[in-house]
């Protein structure tokens, strides 16, 4: 495989990383797992002048769970670590499940969730779950940090809110309130190693009565140029009583807000149908999880 030459840096600390990034803002690419980046470089879709490998930056590794703050996942954490983490399984089981659907075991041991999110693919496995969780991103650069709701992160097809010199440092998934659950549903042609035709993450929070919707979030994938929330559906569903009609309505509204295209994997029409069924099923599963079923 013929690769265009590039410079390679492997910083040991955030300070070194931020210095490299600010100096080579326009021409550098971050290498975390490489499962997307190196494919693009080999196919000559990307030709970065410099690749900065964050594999040795210990300050980007780890998962912490805090009852008040929620779950924090640092950007260098491997997908397989997220998949198997006891904290993730306890506080964000749908994320653990979504992580387990990404690529193959080999890929999950290399790839990071930050890579999955920053790559900006509309069908990325973890993005809908993070949208449903209302995850907050910590974005850093030399001399500063900012926080951004994940729903504001993707701007257009494979374009993110990262400015030159910035990098994604951490994900924070706010602690789930009582009576709330997140579920993930997806569909590819085969059972694994897929680019999903559709995927969706849903958040359902109930009032104390356990039958009135207090809050919902719907994160949709592969039905538009970016993963995004079905905000109109969310507004309409709030306050409804949870029953079969609610589940069906949720599906219909999500499908109505989906804007898919025809491509090699599926037609737009089929994707809308799938979005309706998957959203309905995901809400039904979330309801069952809240009720402890």
């Amino acid at each position: 495989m013929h690769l265009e030459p590039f410079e390679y840096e492997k910083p040991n600390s955030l300070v070194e990383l931020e210095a490299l990034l600010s100096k080579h803002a326009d021409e550098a690419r971050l290498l975390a797992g490489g499962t997307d980046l190196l494919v693009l470089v080999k196919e000559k879709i990307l030709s970065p002048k410099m690749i900065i490998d964050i594999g040795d930056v210990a300050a980007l590794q780890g998962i912490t769970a805090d009852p008040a703050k929620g779950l924090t996942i640092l950007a260098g954490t491997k997908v397989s670590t997220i998949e198997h983490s006891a904290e993730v399984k306890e506080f964000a089981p749908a994320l653990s499940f979504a992580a387990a659907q990404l690529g193959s075991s080999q890929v999950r041991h290399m790839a990071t969730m930050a890579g999955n999110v920053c790559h900006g693919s509309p069908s990325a496995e973890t993005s809908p779950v993070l949208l449903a969780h209302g995850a907050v991103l910590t974005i850093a650069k030399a001399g500063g940090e900012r926080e951004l709701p994940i729903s504001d992160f993707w701007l257009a097809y494979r374009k993110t809110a990262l400015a030159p010199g910035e990098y994604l440092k951490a994900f924070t998934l706010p602690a789930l309130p009582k009576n709330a659950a997140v579920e993930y549903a997806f569909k590819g042609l085969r059972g694994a190693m897929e680019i999903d035709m559709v995927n969706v993450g849903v958040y359902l929070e109930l009032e104390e009565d356990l039958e009135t919707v207090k809050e919902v979030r719907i994160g949709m994938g592969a039905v538009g140029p970016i993963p995004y929330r079905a905000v109109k559906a969310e507004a309409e569903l709030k306050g409804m009583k949870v029953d079969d009609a609610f589940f069906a309505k949720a599906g219909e509204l999500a499908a109505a807000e989906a804007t898919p295209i025809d491509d090699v994997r599926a037609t737009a029409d089929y994707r809308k149908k799938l979005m309706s069924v998957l959203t309905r099923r995901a809400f039904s599963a979330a309801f069952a999880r809240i009720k402890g079923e």
Partner: protein
Amino acid sequence: MSDRKFSVIGTDQVRKEAPDKARGEAIYADDIRLPRMLHGRIKRSDYAHARIISIDTSAAEALPGVKAVVVGSEAPQKYGIVPQAPTETAMAIDKVRYHGEPVAAVAATDPDIAEKALDLIEVEYEPLPVYVNTHDAIAEGAVALHEDNKYGNIAYQARQEFGEVDKAFEESHLVIEKTYKTSYVNHVFMEPHSAVARFDDNGDLRMWSSTQVPHYLHTMLSKVMDMPMAKIHVTVPNVGGGFGGKGEASNNELIAALLSRKARRPVKVIYSRREVFLQHRGRHPIEMKVKMGVDKEGYITAIDYDGLMDGGAYGAWGIIILFYTAAMLHLPYKVKNVRFFGRRIYTNKPTCGPMRGLGGVQPRFALESMMDELAIKLGMSPYELKLKNAIDKKHVTVSGVHVRHSEYKKCLEEVVSESGYLDKHGKLPFGKGVGLAGGYYISGTAYTLYMSYKPHSTALIRLDSESGVTLQCGATDIGQGSNMVLAMMCAEKLGLPYESIHVISGDTKNAPFDLGSFASRVTVAAGSAVCEAADKLIEQILPIAGVALGCRADQLAVGNGEIYSIYEKEIRMPFWDAVEKYIAAHGPLSATGSYTPPRRTGDFKGGNVGHSPTYGFTAHVAEVDVDTETGEVKVVNYNEAGDCGQPINPLSVEGQVEGSIVMAMGQALYEEIKMTPDGRLMNPNLHDYKVPTMRDIPNIKTLAVESYDEDSPFGAKEAGEGPIQPTIPAILNAIYDAIGVRFTEMPVTPEKVLAALAAKGQE
């Protein structure tokens, strides 16, 4: 089965090479690194159909590190697996006929340099109309892909008729006529084509290649390189699967040889996965118009078949496969009236060719679907209809094909009882269903692909008290386990352990002649040759042992490493002592064996095709769950009962059958090469071309029915191509049972299921 007692045959044996393969230590062609070896890369066409106006390689030749550049006109000799009708050259000469066809090649000291050099080759094209479907290719006024072909873009066409077809239809109680279409699929063997070529100072060519057919590669190298066969030596290292796709010379082999001769250095040419899809030779998409009739009791009255085959750009195995689709109409059921019309069409696509179960899978899909439909319309169980029509233990078809041994009825009976088919069919809730289908395949062929009457397989066994048993046979182990099968047979014959047999195979100089691994021929053909050689050795040794033991040779037998009297236990001696005595008295001890299949033919066009020494049979029941909201089809349970004669290694048989089922399941549900209208492949990679993963594989139960073909070596028959035949119709029949929709095209994707359900709902 008979009362035969074997010590090696019929036991589960782990292949000797398996640990090496699992550890990555086994040597494949790509692992070969010779001193001064160059890396070859292939410049490929940017058009699917165009005239080549000019090729300028000067800039590539000037690039430092480039040692040779070759173009098509340097090897103008056409070749093909069917030598009467060669259509291909090592690289395109005046014309390209598919997008990605080789037009030039470079050998350089480094693969990166070779790739860079490809970008420096300038090719000027004059585009021609592109045909990516058969109907466009044979439309009035279409430009012929091959100007020297007599019938425009119809590569071949043939008719056969047996019995009184029209009269039989008139007298039928029920007749169905339908069109079925199969899709454009690739084998997806793990190892891409890989070849290394080296010329020595004597001008002799040595080639190491991942081929299934060292002999046919040998003949084609001789033709294209214009060299006597004796100056060419082909060796096959470990091969990572072939399934037919490596069943003739591929461009990389010829190009490696051409580059090596020009550069005077060894050259390796390996394919990327995309190039594997371009070399292709996958299954022919066929549009089949099929008509079938039955009488009141469900007996088949007649079959009328019209198949339009999409052949892609070149001839390859095409004419053979066309006639196999004809032959496959006659079995495994008794059919008295059969009409066949087949056409193979040239299109601007990577060439179709032999793929596991060639010629059978497409018509089997149509016929087994149709029989299911006929039975249900008659109010009869498809099992009953199939059992009624199934051939008996011996059968002769109206086309003159002799089946010397069949346990097909047993396959049907046992798969139905194992799977609980009769309790489930038509009785499961909406969305769940079971489907039954049967099939068969040849265990070898009666003819070579060129006119020749020599034995199809030969073997040489050498016994030496120092080096042990050396079994030499040109049969080629491509991962199917032929080395193991032959060693097990040899071990059983000589009364020695399997581990003690050393096999040298897949080599045109170091092993005696064999046609190669295709048509499920090796177990019966090469196995017979090995058995004959082993029998001759025993004949030579026993008289020596008889003298030593003071006993008649015809009262002696071999077993457990000893030679012993069949009457008196105490009369015995170690096998190797007898070998030692033989060598001391007579010199080296070796014997050869050979196998020539029975010759049969029919007095009609294609009459040689379909005859085989013996045939394997199989029956399948698939059980599916259809998600009626998403359209997803999940195969949940799968049962197979097969007649492969005596399984030599039951563990390997199970692997062959499971592999067949999974391969066909991929074609039924997921796999399809997609193309743009201008002939570019849209998914030539394993991410977008979807073979099943472990998560998709159902719970599979296979079973070998009691069977022993008295005329086969150790009663064995094929197990690697028959079991792929019924899988697609079994799954599609199960889908019908689940949701009442009959699919006539593959793959049955969730989207198609949902659309069909919606259409059904509107009815």
